[in-house]
């Protein structure tokens, strides 16, 4: 009788141990996803090559956003700047934080005026635009 009990106890303990190991794997599977660190170029490439999965409901909802989704979003953001309320500050801070994280260890590499002009030139070449007044204004010493 004692052997049966101890056998059951052992079995139950083993089961619990295996269950905890499975829970550990579940936790491990999402550890890399929630790091506070910025996404590197290598990670970004990996994300594009093997995009993170969505639930079937997510896919359906996103597919149903409609063709005017961005236009409506931007119109509402443009006309009602207060719509975000306190969230606006959080979003602003987040942009700054993301840059700060991406710049970490790259101090001294800030975008200088020459680089800005080169980017602007590239932009204009790509879009086939003439030089604008704004650009001239930007060229002021």
């Amino acid at each position: 009788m004692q052997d049966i009990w101890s056998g059951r106890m052992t079995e139950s303990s083993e089961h619990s141990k295996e269950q905890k190991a499975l829970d550990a794997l579940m936790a491990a599977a999402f550890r890399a996803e929630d790091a506070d660190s910025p996404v590197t170029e290598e990670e970004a490439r990996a994300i594009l090559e093997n995009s993170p999965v969505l639930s079937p409901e997510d896919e359906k909802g996103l597919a149903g956003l409609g063709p005017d989704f961005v236009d409506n979003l931007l119109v509402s953001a443009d006309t009602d700047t207060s719509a975000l309320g306190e969230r606006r500050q959080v979003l602003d801070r987040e942009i700054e934080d993301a840059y700060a994280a991406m710049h970490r260890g790259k101090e001294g590499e800030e975008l200088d005026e020459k680089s800005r002009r080169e980017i602007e030139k590239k932009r204009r070449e790509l879009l086939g635009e003439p030089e604008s007044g704004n650009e001239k204004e930007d060229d002021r010493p």
Partner: protein
Amino acid sequence: MQDNPGMKEAARLDADEVSILLIGTEEEQNDAIRLIDKYLRFVISGIIRNVAIYLKSEEVQEVYQEVLLGLWRAARDGRYDADRPLLPFVFTIARCRAIDRIRRKSLRKRKIGNELVLDAIAGALADTKVGEAWGNIVSKNDGPRMMATIRKAIIRMPERQRQVASVMIDLYPEEPSLQEIREEVCQRTGEDLTVLAIKSARREARKKIREELVRAGYMERKND
């Protein structure tokens, strides 16, 4: 099988073009956001979903909108830096937004990047069949694919099971009681489920992960 319907679209995005548009005129900035939405909608949302497992689909969409608005506002305010690669920046914003959302909704702080968590994972896997299977897979450099299998299994679970699994993941290495899981699910979703419902969802969630790992050939089927 393609796991994310946006993968093909994403590969066609010209990140340089979008970067340049983001430092252009207001209309060009709008065009940039349209292009990001066109090519990256599913990928960005996938990043959000993989961080914020328990969010409802509508909430994933809300966070996605916040990502687009954040980028748009950065461009409008002249704070977008076209000299930096676009995609890491966009994906970082998506990840930060998702983390921010779950932190606001959770009763307890999520343990992120905590060394103790990693130690606990290693400890739990030691001397188990699951751990042995994991060790074999890691030795074959197939760990990331197995992790992806688990993530996929959890994300594709019915909502309730996914919510329960997410509480267990977020609170790890704690072993929350059913009542604690119930309270956390209620805080996050507003749904007051019974302890029995939580227990059933937890059992089903574990069962599905195991089945998925067996199906993918990572573990042997149990004989019991």
